[in-house]
């Protein structure tokens, strides 16, 4: 009796916790509402299964617990019931998988008009780079990293000269414009994670990964690192500020390009060094 | 990871074939009384030690399939610079083939109850296996002498690592071979060592097979084959 009630209470308490929990996802700030919908759908299906199984167990414990003279039924199998349950499960699984795959297809298909934004992780800070007037980012290489060129940008690449470099500062993005975030790292794995955007992807030294999203509301959002990257992993923070076009351009005007940042002397030095290798 | 998937598919096929003979569709609650399964029906099920060796070889096979997977995954990257394979490896391969043949000979001698043949086969098999190992070491020295150090390039690292792992397995085999030889020496009764000799021979053939596959991979022979597979997959 007590066991059955406690099992029932576990089911009820879990559902109540879910319904009344003040801990819920952060308000969405990107176009990925589909992800949220898929999660909600998954919660409904799995929640129903969980409650059904636990309540059925509680019923069995209540109804069939040992009493003097009770004898269990002899019931080795029931083909038909088993097949029905399997088919039902398969349908439930398909109902979650199909929308998931559709949304994943959107997630990995970057729209043609997305602007590139580069995010670079290193222990333990974030740096950002936006393409200049030419709309293209220059190449980079971890071998070129030096105190004068902390992002390891290629000084010989004409595309890179007008790239806007944002270091030790927040990233600004215009609202409503799709962004393709190019992710790279110069030391270990990191993961550029803004909870409000829902999207995330690891950054791997030696290659460039990406994801895309469209910021849908203005505001300031906190950046965290989601892939363990060493001692100060938890302190690797930054901010993304999503703002209207006008403010964004005002901010953009104040930023400096790679060519401006690297004094002629240091550029010459880098060229000399790479030339000698 | 295609090499290991292929390997696992092979294992799954064997497991599936075996399970298919075990009456997995039977309804055990209806079957009262003594049931005889495959083990007893055939009357001559292989000895336990042989099955044990078979399972062990599956584990070792999985290990090498994983090395091959890692190798072929790395090989596809643009900066891959394969190292020149020393000619000595061909001599070593010959020694290993010889070793395998000698052990096979020892096994057939054991089946004929020819104790001298067994001893001769085991000793020459062991000797040529040791020759193989020494040859491998010399090949390493040649490479190192030519400036191909273990850490200077991923291809070099893989070469040293894979040959080392193969060599270690052969050394483990030599321990078993040594024990078998001393048993033959002491007991003179061939019937009692026949199984040990057979197990050694199987292990040797297996390591020879693994070596030939690795050699094909390291010398780049299988590149064409790998390319074909990749085109089929994509």
């Amino acid at each position: 009796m007590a066991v059955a009630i406690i099992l029932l209470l576990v089911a009820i308490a879990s559902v109540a916790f879910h319904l009344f929990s003040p801990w819920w996802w952060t308000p969405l700030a990107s176009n990925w509402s589909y992800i949220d919908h898929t999660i909600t759908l998954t919660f409904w299906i799995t929640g129903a299964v969980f409650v059904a199984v636990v309540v059925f167990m509680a019923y069995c414990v209540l109804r069939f617990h040992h009493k003097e003279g009770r004898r269990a039924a002899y019931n080795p199998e029931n083909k038909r019931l088993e097949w029905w349950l399997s088919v039902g499960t398969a349908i439930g699984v398909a109902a979650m998988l199909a929308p998931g795959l559709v949304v994943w297809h959107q997630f990995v298909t970057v729209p043609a008009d997305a602007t590139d934004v580069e995010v670079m992780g290193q222990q333990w800070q974030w740096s950002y780079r936006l393409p200049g007037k030419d709309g293209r980012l220059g190449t980079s290489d971890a071998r070129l990293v030096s105190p004068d060129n902390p992002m390891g940008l290629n000084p010989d690449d004409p595309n890179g000269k007008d790239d806007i470099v944002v270091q030790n500062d927040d990233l600004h993005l215009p609202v409503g414009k799709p962004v393709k975030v190019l992710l790279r790292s110069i030391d270990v794995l990191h993961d550029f994670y803004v909870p409000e955007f829902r999207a995330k992807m690891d950054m791997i030294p030696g290659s460039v990964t990406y994801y895309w999203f469209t910021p849908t509301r203005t505001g300031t959002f906190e950046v965290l690192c989601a892939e363990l990257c060493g001692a100060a992993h938890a302190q690797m923070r930054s901010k993304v500020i999503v703002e209207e076009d006008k403010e964004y351009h005002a901010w953009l005007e104040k930023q400096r390009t790679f060519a401006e940042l690297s004094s002629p002397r240091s550029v010459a030095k880098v060229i000399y060094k790479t030339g000698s290798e | 990871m295609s090499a290991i998937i292929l390997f696992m598919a092979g294992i799954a096929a064997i497991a599936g074939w075996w399970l298919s003979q075990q009456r997995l569709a039977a309804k055990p609650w209806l079957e009262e009384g003594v049931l005889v399964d495959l083990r007893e029906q055939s009357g001559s099920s292989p000895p336990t030690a042989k099955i044990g060796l078979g399972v062990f070889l599956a584990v070792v096979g999985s290990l090498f399939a994983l090395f091959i997977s890692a190798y072929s995954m790395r090989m596809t990257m643009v900066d891959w610079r394969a190292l020149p394979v020393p000619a000595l490896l061909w001599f070593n391969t010959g020694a290993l083939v010889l070793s395998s043949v000698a052990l096979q000979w020892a096994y057939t001698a054991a089946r004929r109850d020819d104790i001298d043949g067994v001893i001769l086969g085991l000793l020459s098999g062991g000797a040529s296996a040791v020759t193989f190992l020494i040859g491998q070491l010399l090949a390493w020295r040649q490479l190192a002498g030519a400036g191909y150090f273990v850490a200077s390039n991923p291809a070099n690292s893989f070469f040293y690592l894979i040959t080392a792992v193969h060599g270690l397995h052969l050394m483990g085999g030599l321990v078993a071979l040594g024990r078998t030889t001393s048993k033959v020496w002491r007991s003179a009764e061939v019937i009692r060592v026949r199984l040990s000799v057979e197990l050694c021979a199987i292990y040797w053939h297996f390591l020879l097979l693994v070596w030939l596959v690795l050699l094909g991979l390291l010398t780049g022979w299988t590149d064409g084959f790998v390319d074909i597979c990749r085109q089929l997959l994509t």
Partner: protein
Amino acid sequence: MVDVPFDTVAGIPPAEVGEVDLYHPKSWWTRYVFSQDAKVIAIQYSITAMSIGMVALVLSWLMRLQLGFPGTFSFIDPNQYLQFITMHGMIMVIYLLTALFLGGFGNYLIPLMVGARDMVFPYVNMLSYWVYLLAVVVLVSTFFVPGGPPGAGWTLYPPQAILSGTPGQDWGIILMLASLILFIIGFTMGGLNYVVTVLQARTRGMTLMRLPLTVWGIFTATVMALLAFPALLVASVMLLLDRLLGTSFFMPTLVEMGQLTKYGGGSPILFQHLFWFFGHPEVYIVALPAFGIISDLISVHARKNIFGYRMMVWAIVAIGALSFVVWAHHMYVSGMHPYFGFFFATTTLIIAIPTAIKVYTWVLTLWRGDIHLTIPMLFALAFIVTFVNGGLTGLFLGNVVVDVPLSDTMFVVAHFHMVMGIAPIMAVFGGIYHWYPKITGRMLNEVLGRFHFWVSFLGAYAIFFPMHYLGLLGMPRRYHDIGETAFVPASAHDLNAFMSVAALIVGFAQLVFLFNLVWSLFKGKEAGGNPWGAASLEWQTPETPPGHGNWGKELPIVYRWAYDYSVPGAAGDFVPQNEPPAGLLAQGAGP
């Protein structure tokens, strides 16, 4: 009924370890320390695993203290926190659960359940334990070397695992990798035994379809482990070489603390593929024995045959095979080719179907049963609740796009603790309460046992159920202190504190359990040979605890499956597996 040609059977010798080959201890040392008896090895494995598990439990207290009350305990710094999570994870997954299920339960139960005298290679079996012990010693030694244990997370992802920004990168990681290599060697020795014993040493009449599901679970898990652990071996060896010799298997060109390193050309993703090629089957290596044990516990304590035995067996085999083609669902956000996501999400969700079938058959076994709410049964019920909960959240994480916001958050931590932490531990406890009488001849104390059960089950549920919601909120994992973060409300810190208190209470309940284990050894109620009225073979030994060689003079002969409970027309409510059918006795062909 199937026609069985009894007369043809008579001439076939029973499959067993011959009296000559059977190992006989000659002294106290070879009987209790360097023993080749699987039962002694099982106890050695279990004690070692539980001891190292206690270390991991203490580490979890320290972690929870830090998370619940950040800044209060000055003796835990961020580096140590990372070392705690790494050691806790590695110990729990490999050195406790794998060793306990396969080395502990496997060694004890396989020979008894299949009706063998011992494992088929007793000497190798003994070596297996001692290599395992060495691996544990090497692992523990990381606490005492300069720099301390590794702090790279239990996944040991390079490049950071061997770079200077991570604690324990000088000695800790080297010893950890060496310990893993030893563990795998030791496990392979043991695993060969478990597999070949099931293949070869089953007694007469013990066909595969008459094996108890515990044996099916352990057998399949061992086959998987034998094939999957080499992937961890390959990854460990290569990482070790990267650390020691400066090779670049996993190390691309990179900058370490502003300095360009000599590494170049390696692939960090390759490590992840190798690691998870082991890591995912590992989940089922832990889960399948638990599935088997739970099936047996439910059937025995509900006095009812397991519902859908055939489906159970097929599901175990299907799960075992499928679990090798789902590994990359741990890598959806690792930066691998995005199109892999379609394939691995599909295979991952397909594996949910055989798993669900198992859950259905358990609850349908309860239905119309005669449920004795003994402690093993309670643990089985708790297993179903926690396993269903954790399994269902797996459907979130396996569905590739849903995984994107949730991966690397506390949701993942909650999920895997529920499904491969709490649930298998419930199966372990249930198994111990169930088989302790066979191992020692005495029952565990009932009052302490019920206390232990309720605190462990409800406490653990109270820790890990709410934790999902912190992950949903966006709280990342492996943070020693979330600190001032805009989207984290103050109430989340209160919830963390609540979970920490619950964790401490659950932890102390485990001390009660350990006390019970020791106390009952001397003061427990005498159990007799078959206190639960179980039909499977291990309860039919002539002696309790089973003597050397398990079966006295003659091996048992098996006449039926392991689940003949409440058979219509039978006298008692169970029929032992080795009880001959009535007709056979009349013919005089029985034992």
